[in-house]
C-alpha cells in the first residue's frame, strides 16, 4: 500500500501484523478491539493464513503458545477483562521464552467496567501481567500510524528477545480513523533453532516447556532471563520529547493522553508558560534517562493519565522524587480535556513552576 488509506486504529494494526508476516491470529471478540478480529477474519483466508475465533480468551492465548512453539509469527488481541483471562498464558509464554504479540485495547475497569477508553491496565502490562518474575515489552501508540508501526516493531522485538510484546492501546486508538501509510521494509525473522519443527531424525528434540523440576535450574533460568531484560532496557527504550528544550513544567503522558496534552501545551506556550512533554513510547522499558535528565531543570512534572495514577509511580522513581510530580486524570472511560490539562499546567505555573 503506497498511497495513504483511511483506517481505524484496530484495522491498521491488523493489516500491519499481516505485512509483518503474521499468518496466525486467535482471538475472542470484545469491544473496543473487535475490528482486529473482524479484519483478520476477512483477510486471513485470502492469504492462506489462519483466523480462528477461539472458545475463550484462555484458549486463544494457548493457541498462540502452540503456534509460537513452531517458530511462526502469531498474535492475539483483546481488551482489559480479556487480557486478565490471558494472564496465565502470558506467564507460560515468558516461562518458555516464546515470542508473541498481544494487543490490549484498554477499556474502563475494574471488573467488566465499560467499553469506553482507559489506561488503567498500565500496572498489569508493565509490572509483569501475571505470576512469576517476568516482563513484557510494552508499546504505547498515540496515533493510528503508530498502531501500525509499533505492531511491526513489536514482532521484531518479540523475535529478537524471545519475549511477548504487548501493544497497550486504548479504545480511542482502536476506534479513531486517520490516514496511514503502510510501507515497511520487513526484515526476515531471525533463525529459531529452538522451534519444534520436527527433528527429521537429524537433531535432538526441541522442548518448549515452562516446568522446571530442579530449583537450582529454575533459579538459573530466571537470572538469565533478567540478563536479557537488561539488554532490552539498554537497547530498546523509545520516547518522544515535545518542546522540552526550555520546559519548566513537564507533562508525562502516553497514548490518547499525550495527544490531549499536546493541545494543552500549545495553548500554555501561547500564554507564556514554558511547558513541554516526555511521551514514553515503550512503557516497559520505561524511559528513565530523559525523565532523570529533565528533573535537573524542570520545576514540576504532571502525569496525565486515564487511570487513578499508575505511570506516575514510574515518573517518581525515574526522577528520584527530586521535584513534585502531580496527577491530572479522568477515569471510567472519560478522557481529560485539553482545558483540564491546561488548568493543571497553569496551577503548576502559579505554584512556582514557571517563574
Amino acid at each position, binding site marked *: *500500500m503506497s498511497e*495513504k*488509506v*483511511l*483506517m*481505524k486504529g484496530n*484495522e491498521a494494526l491488523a*493489516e500491519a501484523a499481516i505485512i509483518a508476516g503474521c499468518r496466525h491470529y486467535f482471538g475472542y471478540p470484545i*469491544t*473496543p478491539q473487535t475490528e482486529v478480529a473482524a479484519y483478520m477474519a*476477512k483477510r486471513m483466508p485470502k492469504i492462506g493464513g489462519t483466523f480462528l475465533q477461539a472458545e475463550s480468551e484462555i484458549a486463544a492465548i494457548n493457541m498462540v503458545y502452540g503456534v509460537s512453539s513452531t517458530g511462526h509469527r502469531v498474535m492475539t488481541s483483546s481488551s482489559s477483562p480479556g487480557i486478565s483471562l490471558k494472564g496465565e498464558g502470558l506467564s507460560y509464554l515468558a516461562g518458555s521464552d516464546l515470542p508473541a504479540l498481544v494487543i490490549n485495547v484498554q477499556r*474502563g475497569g475494574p471488573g467488566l*467496567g*465499560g*467499553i*469506553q477508553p482507559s489506561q488503567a491496565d498500565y500496572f498489569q502490562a508493565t509490572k509483569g501481567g501475571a505470576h512469576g518474575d517476568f516482563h513484557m515489552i510494552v508499546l504505547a501508540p498515540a496515533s493510528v500510524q503508530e498502531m501500525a508501526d509499533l505492531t511491526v516493531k513489536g514482532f521484531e522485538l518479540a523475535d529478537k528477545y524471545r519475549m511477548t510484546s504487548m501493544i497497550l492501546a486504548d*479504545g*480511542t486508538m482502536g*476506534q*479513531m*480513523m*486517520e*490516514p496511514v501509510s503502510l510501507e515497511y521494509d520487513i526484515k526476515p525473522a531471525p533463525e529459531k533453532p529452538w522451534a519444534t519443527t520436527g527433528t527429521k531424525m537429524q537433531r535432538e528434540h526441541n522442548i518448549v516447556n515452562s516446568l522446571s523440576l530442579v530449583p537450582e535450574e529454575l533459579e538459573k533460568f530466571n537470572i538469565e532471563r533478567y540478563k536479557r531484560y537488561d539488554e532490552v532496557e539498554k537497547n530498546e527504550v523509545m520516547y518522544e520529547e515535545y518542546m522540552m528544550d526550555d520546559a519548566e513544567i513537564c507533562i508525562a503522558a502516553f497514548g*490518547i493522553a499525550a*495527544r*490531549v496534552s499536546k493541545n494543552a501545551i500549545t495553548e500554555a506556550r501561547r500564554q507564556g508558560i514554558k511547558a513541554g512533554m516526555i511521551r514514553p513510547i515503550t512503557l516497559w522499558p520505561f524511559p528513565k534517562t530523559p525523565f532523570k535528565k529533565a528533573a535537573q531543570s524542570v520545576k514540576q512534572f504532571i502525569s496525565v493519565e486515564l487511570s487513578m495514577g499508575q505511570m506516575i509511580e514510574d515518573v517518581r522513581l525515574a526522577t528520584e522524587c527530586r521535584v513534585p510530580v502531580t496527577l491530572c486524570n479522568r477515569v471510567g*472511560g472519560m*478522557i481529560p480535556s485539553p482545558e483540564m490539562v491546561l488548568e493543571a499546567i497553569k496551577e503548576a505555573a502559579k505554584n512556582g513552576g514557571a517563574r
Partner: protein
Amino acid sequence: MDYKRLTLICGHYGSGKTNVAVNLAFDLKRQYNKTSIADLDIVNPYFRTKDSTEELERAGIELICSDYAGTNVDIPALPQQMYSITDDRSKKVILDIGGDDRGALALGRLAPAILAENDYEMLMVINRFRPLTRDARSTVEVMREIEYAGGIPFTGLVNNSNLGEETTAEDILSSVAYANEVSELSSLPVKFTSVHDTVYAAVAGKINNLFPLKLQPKIG
C-alpha cells in the same frame, strides 16, 4: 436534493455513513418540517448519530435511537420507536444503517414494509481510501453482501471518498473515476459526491452534484 420518504444510508463500515446521514437530515429539514433521523447501527458502539443529539434537537429533527447507544451497555439494540419509521408515513426519515452486511441485518424486519410502500432511496456510501473498498470490484462485492443481508436493493451511490482531515481537492477529484467505475459495474447512478465544506470551493464546478459536509467533532 429531492428526497423520497425514506432515505437509507448503508455502506462499508468507516465509509462515513453516519456523517453523511446527519448532514442529509439537516438538509432535508430545510425542505420538510417533519424530519427524523434513525440510528439503526447495531455494529459500532463508539461513533453514533447520538453524538449529535444536541444539534439535532436544536434543529427540531427527531432522533430515533436506542436508549443504549453511547452508553456502556454494549449490546446490538434497536430503538423501541423503530416501527414508527414505516408506520407513520407523515414523516420523512434518514436511516443510518450499521456497517457491512452485519449492520444491514437490522433492516430485515423493516424491509417488507419499506418495499411495499416503495417510496425509498437506498444509498451505498463509498470511499476509495478505505482499504477493503479501494477498487470498484471489491466495493461492489461489499455492496452485494449488504443487499443480501438487508433484503433491499440499492438505488444509488454516494461518493464520500475522503482521508479524514487530510483530504485534499486532488483526493476528491481522483475519486470520481472510481465512483464512475462502481456506477458502471453496479448499474447505479452516483447521486452525489459529498465533500467537507473546507474543500468544497476547490472542487465546485469540477464535479456534478456536490453535497457539502460538516465533519463531526473528533476526540484528541
